[in-house]
């Protein structure tokens, strides 16, 4: 699997056409989905379209309704209202066993009394396919996930990562129109997690299979998804590309959930925080420190330094606020006096982004759900940024 891994990251442009204007018949369309459980509204008028061949993550904190949504797509829960269309067919009224989707469960849900081969063959056996065809398809898919050598092992005898691949193989062997993954990596250790998510992305790209992943890990979502639906309290807060989500979060919730942000009460004018009723959000990599005065910079003192490996998290105290910055290269010593400059700030009113501007220039762009075209520009507008990878988790 490792030979083609290099393509995984480059494959951000999905086959289904993220920018494509024409609505494809494939993929997944959810409209007006509602679900109440125990008198509590879990899903509140949810709309979501996943294009054919696209990989979309449902990202959110626990209890935001992402798993409930996935279970309704899979057919384990019936929505109170709304429709779910898979590959152009309304499946809302169908049970899980009659839907063209296949799911990979969080705990893998492998049947312990069957061998790996039998686990993967079970869906085909149910379809009453001839034995040679089952044999061939199972062998092929086990080869795809690199597990042919464990064909006759039982799930209890193989490692967690291998169990996960069996679960994936069992879903893929059905050649589903829609692949669903429920927190696929949460039971793996950190190192394996990165490898497996690359593998999943690579296989998904190779097969061009429409995929929905549920995760609470923004890192995971950012690194595999074509688009991410950030969910909060049963609603989708924003549905955009990973870059767009980070650069132009539509709400304060998204801004704080994805990456780290300096969150300051007040307003923003001419590179400084002023009194006001709004909330200003500044990404740490948009705060720059220099020992000599620069246009727009204010005097600042280094208050605290936290080494973070390939960069340092530095707290800079200015007269208007204390700002967290990510600095690479030569890090100033504790207590150093210098100048701090903010190159980009976002202003939120009532939790919603109202103004986003780089120092000096006015950017009238608003975080617009689904508007993917501008994603690259925001990143390029401050190429001077010495900041490390923007997606580093706090």
């Amino acid at each position, binding site marked *: 699997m490792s030979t083609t891994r290099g393509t995984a990251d480059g494959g951000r442009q999905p086959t289904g056409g993220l920018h494509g204007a024409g609505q494809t018949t494939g993929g997944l369309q959810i409209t007006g989905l509602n679900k109440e459980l125990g008198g509590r509204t879990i899903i509140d008028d949810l709309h979501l379209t996943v294009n054919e061949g696209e990989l979309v993550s449902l990202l959110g904190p626990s209890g935001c309704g992402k798993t409930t949504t996935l279970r309704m797509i899979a057919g384990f829960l019936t929505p109170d209202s709304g429709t779910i269309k898979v590959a152009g067919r309304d499946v809302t009224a169908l049970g*899980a066993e009659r*839907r063209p989707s*296949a799911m990979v469960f969080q705990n893998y*849900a492998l*049947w312990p009394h069957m061998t790996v081969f039998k686990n993967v063959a079970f869906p085909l056996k149910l*379809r009453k396919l001839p034995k040679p065809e089952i044999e061939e398809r199972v062998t092929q898919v086990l080869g795809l996930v690199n597990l042919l050598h464990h064909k006759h092992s039982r799930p209890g005898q193989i490692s967690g990562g291998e169990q996960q691949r069996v679960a994936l193989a069992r879903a893929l062997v059905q050649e589903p129109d829609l692949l669903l993954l429920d927190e696929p990596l949460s039971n793996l250790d950190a190192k394996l997690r990165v490898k497996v998510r690359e593998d999943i992305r690579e296989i998904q790209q190779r097969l061009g299979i429409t995929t929905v992943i549920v995760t609470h890990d923004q890192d995971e979502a950012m690194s595999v998804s074509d688009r991410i639906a950030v969910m909060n309290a049963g609603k989708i807060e924003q549905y955009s590309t990973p870059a767009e989500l980070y650069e132009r979060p539509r709400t304060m919730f998204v801004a704080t959930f994805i990456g780290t942000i300096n969150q300051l009460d007040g307003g923003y004018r001419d590179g400084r925080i002023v009194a006001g009723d709004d909330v200003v959000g500044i990404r740490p990599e948009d705060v720059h420190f220099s020992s000599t005065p620069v246009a727009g910079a204010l005097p600042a003192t280094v208050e605290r330094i936290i080494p973070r490996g390939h960069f340092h998290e530095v707290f800079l105290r200015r007269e208007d606020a204390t700002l967290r910055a990510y600095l690479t290269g030569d890090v100033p010593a504790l207590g150093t006096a210098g100048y701090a400059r903010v190159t980009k700030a976002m202003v939120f009113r009532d939790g919603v982004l109202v103004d986003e501007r780089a120092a000096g220039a006015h950017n009238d762009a608003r975080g617009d759900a689904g508007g993917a075209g501008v994603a690259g520009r925001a990143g390029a507008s401050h190429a001077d940024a010495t900041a490390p990878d923007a997606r580093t988790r706090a």
Partner: protein
Amino acid sequence: MTTTEQTAVVEQRTRLGQTARMRTSGALGTITGKVLVIIFVIFMVVFILGPLLWLAVHAFAQSWTFPNLWPTGWTLRWWQTVFSDKALGVAVQNSLVISPLVVLFSAVICLPAAYAFARFDFFARRTFLVGLFATNAFPKMGLFATLASLFYALNLMNTVAGIIIVQILGTIVFMTWIPAAAFAAVPRSLEEAARDAGASRIRVFFSITLRMAMPGILVAAVMSFLASFDEAQGTYLVGAPAYFTMPTEMYTLVLNYPKQVAAVFSILLSIPSVVLMLAARKHIMGGQLAEGFQIR
């Protein structure tokens, strides 16, 4: 040789000495441990196998009374007595027919209940579950006396059906509680995964749920069989004098013959239990059924 090297050598020697000392103390510890284990094993053997040995000797002894350390002679007469007793053959037959039937009916009645207890939340679920203990909570004889009057009214006295009903009462707790726990232990996601793969609900039940709960159900079946096989009080009350099973027949034997005959009969009575236990051990404790539960 430089000083550092010398120190190193000395250090090494000291270390070697230490390990050697540690090894001797370790060996001493092992010996004490072994002795303790052996004493414990002998103790267990005497308590578990002792009575069986006593039975075995009696079954083949001409007579074996207190002051004598060993029986006066050996004979197969008691076995002959037992096997030539016609009533006994009938009793064995009755037992071997009634007990499997009891297990079967008990399973038919209790397994759906067990599944319901495990998978559905219904009104007074816990009360019913605990209520199953009722038959075991009161003195059996009182229960059977009441039952007898009811059976007279229903013409169930001295019938096989009556015996089966009485014996089922004693198996209900096993047949409901153990399978209920087994059903409940089947992770729902395994059933959902099967449905997702395209299996109907019935297929899911037979291919996944029942299959995975099978070890528990087998244990329940074995325990029910033994409970039924050993049940004497109720069976005697309902069945005698028309039907005798092996335990009830034993009452008669103990009263009418010397204790050697009872010994022979005890051995016969324990054969099915031993066979069942060995079978259960082979199929439940070892192999994939046990292994299946390691997975989350």
